């Protein structure tokens, strides 16, 4: 292959290094107004009265809206949220009213003048408490909400989804097991922290047509949500996502778009812009859900695990329109990358008075596999088996079964392990140069599937220009992961045109064709397949015309470097440029017209699971597997941890662009280190305590370890050139590998994240007291 598999430079590189690329907050329109949001100061309260009279009188204030203006509930999978609170607030910081004014300063001033009278309601901020029978109900009307049929909300409780897996007979297996282990784990809320805060601009013209510029991962999903919320037909809504400054899930679905639109509807044609502050970004964009997990594991003497009964309780926050699907994804991977005969899993999405939980790189997999991978090491240590050996014994392998009892036909998990071990000796003892420091090594697996509805669609259009250059149109969004470049490489490969002659256009629902969402590490796979199909379509048209022109059978023609060439007589050829508008016949007449290729894709044969057992032969398109080894240094006096070396291997199916995919893994490892060592969005009685980069540390260049990034290429048969997604999976093993290294080396137990110095020192103290 000529282009796929090579490190083509990013097609958006020059625009980004020059500052030329305009992100939403960089856009400015004539007569534009600026919005600010009045936010709830209570975690759970009835709204008794909203007084906007003082704010309205402030000069420069143009529009004020409250939830009453558009009370219709919306949601991706469960319609439980309003863009502005109606009657009730359910978390501290929830949007209650919005102002559009001539300047940002005036808008903020006006917000301060809005007075809200609340009547406090009892709060619940721990998901385990929220499941109890006497817990205050956060959505008393849950039973009346609309939801997608694969979910199971429980009316008159705080449980918005219950996904269960019932495979084999765990109780019987526990009786047979030589040992039973029970362990609990917790991962806290964390924030995505894209460096670009959310931003949206909305404008409504006199025909009632709505245009929205949004820093969003999924223009089409946003368009649909807005259409439902505001009763506007889809052909009257245009959503553009000109550039996205990092998403990691936070910009999936809708967030602030629904706040600016009601303002724009009343602003007499003036566009309205809203940009989140960093504090807003911490609290008001999706947070990663906190999660309590619990495992009861039945093991034989030889290390074979015969049964796992586990429970995942997700702190979904105030609204779980998106979070319910994370609960389901957790069920599909109920026991991680292991083949276990008997499984009983309950995964609950639970409302609390916390910010809204939602997708975060990994979509639940980092959260559950922290527990799964810690559990593995704890069991290995108790049995005196090597943690790598116990993984080998229980790993999913070709011919085995996943948690949903789906047959496994490709699985590079142990290949990844072996590849990591080539550069990583877990048993090699390294002495730290400092007497107070201990070096430690740990390993963890990771696996993930694209978590998406079965039938989500992608599409692509390719248009050839008169000079043989091409336009590629998709609505997959390059949120930094490099999809513009990878998709261009696919088109270049099929059309045999160099990437620099192809211009990719994305993110405009009026002009680029349908894409469900840029999430789930699904774009290379789903959008990639649609691009290949579009280019194959264009290619078929070119061969048809060339066959007529050259008098050669189509089967004896191929595309090569901008020409259609005979495979038999290489000097017989016609330039793609000369066919781009159709074929001119010898008598001067023309046929066909411009070459436009269309391609669509839906992952084949992905089917619903059984509701009672959670089992299904193909509930996901494919699984991506991998492994990480980490080498850390712990300061036993301060409890500080530094990650020194990481070796990672993932089975990506096909490395489409080595530099880009390395970049995904490196970024994921470092994000994983942040989640392991420092990151936790803290709350006290629902009040966020650390919504800033001063109080919530994310990794800096000084925290970067040495990284060795390796790949296995077991082809995914349905993937574009064999590729499968990897951007999310790569983060999953980081935190458990670090925790395993720490705990095994010091002989301590820490079963929650982050691994703070305080926890390390306490655990060491506890051990010494024993």
């Amino acid at each position, binding site marked *: 292959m000529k282009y796929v598999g090579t490190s083509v*430079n990013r097609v958006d590189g020059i625009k980004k*290094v020059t500052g030329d690329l305009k992100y939403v907050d960089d856009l400015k329109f004539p007569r534009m107004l600026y919005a600010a949001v009045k936010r709830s100061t209570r975690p759970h309260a009835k709204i008794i009265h909203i007084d906007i009279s003082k704010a309205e009188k402030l000069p420069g204030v143009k529009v004020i809206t409250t939830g009453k203006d558009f009370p219709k509930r919306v949601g991706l999978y469960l319609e439980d949220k309003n863009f502005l609170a109606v009657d009730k607030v359910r978390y501290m910081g929830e949007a209650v009213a919005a102002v559009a004014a001539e300047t940002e300063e005036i808008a903020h001033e006006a917000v301060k003048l809005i007075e809200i009278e609340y009547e406090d309601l009892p709060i619940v901020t721990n998901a385990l408490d929220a499941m109890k029978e006497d817990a205050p109900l956060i959505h008393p009307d849950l039973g009346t909400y609309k939801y997608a049929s694969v979910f199971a909300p429980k009316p008159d409780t705080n449980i918005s989804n219950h996904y269960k897996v019932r495979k084999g007979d765990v109780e019987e297996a526990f009786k047979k097991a030589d040992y039973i282990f029970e362990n609990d784990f917790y991962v806290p809320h964390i924030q995505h922290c894209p*460096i670009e805060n959310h931003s949206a601009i909305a404008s409504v013209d006199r025909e009632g047509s709505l245009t929205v510029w949004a820093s969003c991962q999924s223009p089409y999903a946003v368009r649909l949500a807005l259409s439902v919320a505001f009763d506007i037909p889809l052909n009257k809504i245009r959503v553009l996502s000109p550039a996205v400054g990092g998403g990691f899930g936070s910009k999936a679905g809708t967030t602030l778009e629904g706040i600016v639109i009601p303002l724009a509807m009343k602003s007499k044609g003036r566009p309205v812009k809203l940009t989140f*502050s960093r504090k807003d970004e911490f609290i008001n964009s999706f947070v990663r859900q906190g999660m309590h997990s619990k495992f009861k594991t039945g093991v034989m003497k030889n290390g074979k695990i015969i049964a796992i009964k586990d429970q995942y309780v997700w702190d979904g926050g105030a609204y779980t329109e998106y979070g319910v699907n994370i609960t389901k994804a957790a069920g599909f991977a109920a026991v991680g990358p292991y083949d276990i005969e008997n499984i009983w899993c309950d995964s609950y999405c639970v409302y609390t008075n916390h910010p809204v939980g939602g997708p975060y790189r990994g979509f639940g997999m980092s959260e559950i596999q922290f527990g799964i991978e810690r559990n593995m090491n704890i069991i290995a240590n108790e049995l005196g088996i090597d943690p790598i050996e116990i993984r080998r014994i229980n790993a999913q392998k070709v011919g085995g079964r996943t948690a949903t009892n789906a047959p496994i036909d490709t699985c590079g998990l142990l290949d990844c392990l072996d590849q990591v071990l080539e550069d990583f000796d877990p048993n090699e003892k390294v002495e730290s140069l400092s007497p107070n420091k201990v070096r430690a090594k740990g390993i963890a697996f990771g696996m993930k599937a694209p978590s998406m509805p079965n039938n989500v669609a992608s599409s692509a259009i390719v248009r050839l220009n008169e000079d043989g250059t091409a336009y590629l149109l998709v609505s997959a969004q390059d949120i*930094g*992961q490099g999809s513009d470049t990878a998709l261009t490489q696919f088109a270049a490969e099929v059309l045999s045109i160099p990437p620099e002659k192809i211009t990719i256009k994305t993110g405009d629902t009026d002009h680029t064709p349908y894409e469900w969402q840029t999430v789930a590490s699904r774009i290379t796979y789903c959008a990639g397949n649609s691009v290949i199909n579009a280019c194959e379509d264009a290619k078929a048209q070119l061969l048809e015309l060339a066959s007529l022109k050259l008098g050669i059978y189509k089967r004896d023609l191929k595309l090569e470097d901008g020409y259609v060439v005979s495979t038999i007589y290489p000097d017989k050829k016609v330039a793609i440029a000369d066919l781009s508008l159709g074929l001119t016949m010898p008598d001067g007449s023309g046929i066909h017209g411009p070459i436009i290729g269309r391609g669509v894709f839906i992952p084949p044969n992905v089917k619903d699971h059984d509701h009672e057992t959670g089992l299904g032969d193909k509930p996901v398109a494919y699984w991506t597997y991998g492994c990480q080894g980490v080498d850390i240094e712990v300061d036993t006096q301060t409890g500080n941890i530094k990650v020194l070396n990481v070796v990672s291997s993932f089975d990506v199916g096909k490395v489409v662009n080595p530099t880009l995919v390395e*970049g995904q893994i490196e970024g994921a490892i470092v994000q994983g280190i942040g989640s392991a060592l420092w990151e936790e969005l803290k709350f006290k009685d629902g009040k966020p305590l650390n919504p800033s980069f001063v109080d919530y540390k994310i*990794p800096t*260049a000084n925290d970067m370890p040495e990284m060795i990034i390796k790949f296995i290429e077991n082809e995914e048969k349905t993937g574009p050139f064999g590729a499968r997604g990897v951007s999310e999976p790569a983060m999953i093993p980081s935190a458990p590998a670090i925790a395993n290294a720490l705990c095994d080396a010091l002989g301590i137990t820490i079963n929650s994240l982050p691994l703070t110095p305080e926890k390390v020192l306490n655990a060491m103290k506890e051990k010494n007291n024993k």
Partner: protein
Amino acid sequence: MKYKINFILNNENVEHEVEANRTLLKVLREDFDLTGAKEGCGLGECGACTILVDGRPVNACMMLGIEADGKEILTIEGLSNGTKLDELQLSFVNNGALQCGYCTPGMIMSAKGLLKENATPTEDEVKEAISGNLCRCTGYKKIVEAIMEVVENNK
């Protein structure tokens, strides 16, 4: 109340009127449409707004517009000469040292500031110099490599 200031902006003399309380970042982005410097936090915590003031990297969100008076300001837009990119910009593209690109202008300006002061920094000095520039995408490895490549080329 507006104050008149004179400064050099991307190699041109400019005269401007500015309110006392507006940050230089807002002035650059809103009055001059130089949106390359980004606002990631507005509080001096992320480095996305980094520009050079008299050759030194500064968080434009922490500086008032009026403080630009008499200074020489360079933003990412002034770094390249037309379509001829600066060596750092080229190296970032060639090394895949960017993903979403939101931190990139600030990151490059911090690196530029470092190289102006010390043309042959060590890798640790590079990391230290960009440690105030948060990047959530790349894991920093390729950024450090891109900067070190420029350092090596100039040796």
